[in-house]
């Protein structure tokens, strides 16, 4: 890891408001990520590979794939978000940037929110953009693909937000990766159920508005509560180190 290649968080004057601090953190995280492009590609490759495993491992039948496709894509997306979560705070924790963030005069939950949004833009959003291609590969029909993308678009930010809590809690622990999955998967299950439920309803020609509204409610709930929990967890983990 080349520490010098990673831009520092620029020191702010005290007067800088929460919003511009968020913007600065967000922009910095994107810049750091684009200097290590391989890290960006890995979750995407993982996503495609997991999806590939199902036709090979279970059945390549069109009828099976059409029925299970949405679920397969959702599970694969969930796993690849989970895989990338460990990076969310790890590098900043290792090189001390995180302590500087905690010391900023701006509220920590705003900065955590900015970091989580950056994480979503870097991992969740590419998954959403890739989903139509994979949707065709698992023989989803026209309308289902778009509904699937829509559910992923609303659902993956929830995954990032809930995941940020787990990443903050397991920071600095030795077996963090496995523990992180252990803590977070139970919390992901409702999102998965409603995400795939929406596509199933769309495939049957039923109305999907209610399902999407519930996913949106999850997003709102996670958006308002998760950054607080994650920043509390971060402070605890840092005081431990």
């Amino acid at each position: 890891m080349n520490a010098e290649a990673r831009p520092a968080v620029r020191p702010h004057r005290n007067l800088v408001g929460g919003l511009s601090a968020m913007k600065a953190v967000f922009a910095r995280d994107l810049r750091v990520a684009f200097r290590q492009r391989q890290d960006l590609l890995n979750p995407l490759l993982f996503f495609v590979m997991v999806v590939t495993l199902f036709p090979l491992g279970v059945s390549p039948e069109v009828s099976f794939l059409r029925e299970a496709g949405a679920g397969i894509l959702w599970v694969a997306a969930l796993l690849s978000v989970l895989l990338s979560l460990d990076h969310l705070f790890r590098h900043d924790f290792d090189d001390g940037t995180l302590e500087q963030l905690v010391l900023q005069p701006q509220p920590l939950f705003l900065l955590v929110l900015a970091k989580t949004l950056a994480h979503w833009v870097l991992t969740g959003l590419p998954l959403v953009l890739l989903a139509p291609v994979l949707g065709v590969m698992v023989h989803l029909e026209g309308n289902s693909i778009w509904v699937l993308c829509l559910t992923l678009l609303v659902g993956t930010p929830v995954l990032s937000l809930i995941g940020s809590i787990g990443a903050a809690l397991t920071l600095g622990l030795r077996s963090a990766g496995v523990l992180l999955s252990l803590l977070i998967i139970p919390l992901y299950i409702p999102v998965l159920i409603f995400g795939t439920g929406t596509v199933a309803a769309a495939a049957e020609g039923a109305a999907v508005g209610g399902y999407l509204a519930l996913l949106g409610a999850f997003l709102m709930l996670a958006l308002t509560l998760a950054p607080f929990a994650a920043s509390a967890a971060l402070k605890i983990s840092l005081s431990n180190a």
Partner: protein
Amino acid sequence: MWQFFHKLGSPKWFFGIANRLMPWLLAGALILLLAGLVWGLLFAPKDYLQGNSYRIIFIHVPSAFLAQSVYIMMAVAAVVTLVWRMKLADVFVKAVAPVGLLLTFLALFTGAVWGKPTWGTWWIWDARLTSMLILLFLYGGVIALGRAISDEKSAARSVAVLVLVGVVNIPIIKYSVEWWNTLHQPATFKLTEKPSMPAEMWVPLLLSVLGLYLLFGWLACLRMKTEILAREQRTRWVKDYIQAGRA
């Protein structure tokens, strides 16, 4: 009032109280459980629909009931840990999490045994069953996180955050049978309505629920005492206590 509150935070004071309370809790638990189970399993009338197989309700419902309320108690203790930094609250969470895990497992297991004759299957991906399974995972996560962090204080607070995050699952379990129209039957007891079963059925059920609560209380005291002894092993009163026990 405040003095009482402060005393409650003192492990030594709790230790004394627990010692005095435990025989009563155990006696009450044994009497109520014995009465409830013997009545329920041997003397309560057969169900008109399910025959004798319904009798597992006298174990299934109390354990499922308690599995959820133990989590809620843990969440309350988690708030106390985060806000007032009270040591005893964390001792409670750490002591009862495995008990909650066991109760959840018991509820799932007895449910499976009950499901086989009535639904014709051991397991089904029904909303109530799935959300109870999630509860099992949550207990597992709480225990795993607590054991992974070596520093006692930050372990306590990290676990408290996780417990609070997981509490969103409780209303999902509670209302799963009403929100989703699935196989599982609705709640047996409601505070606001008269039970739909005859008294010979619900009275023993109520007795076993209360008995299990007392048994849980006893178990919680026992496990908390052990935890306190381990944590306070360097203090004077623990040394005196051990010495007195040996003499």
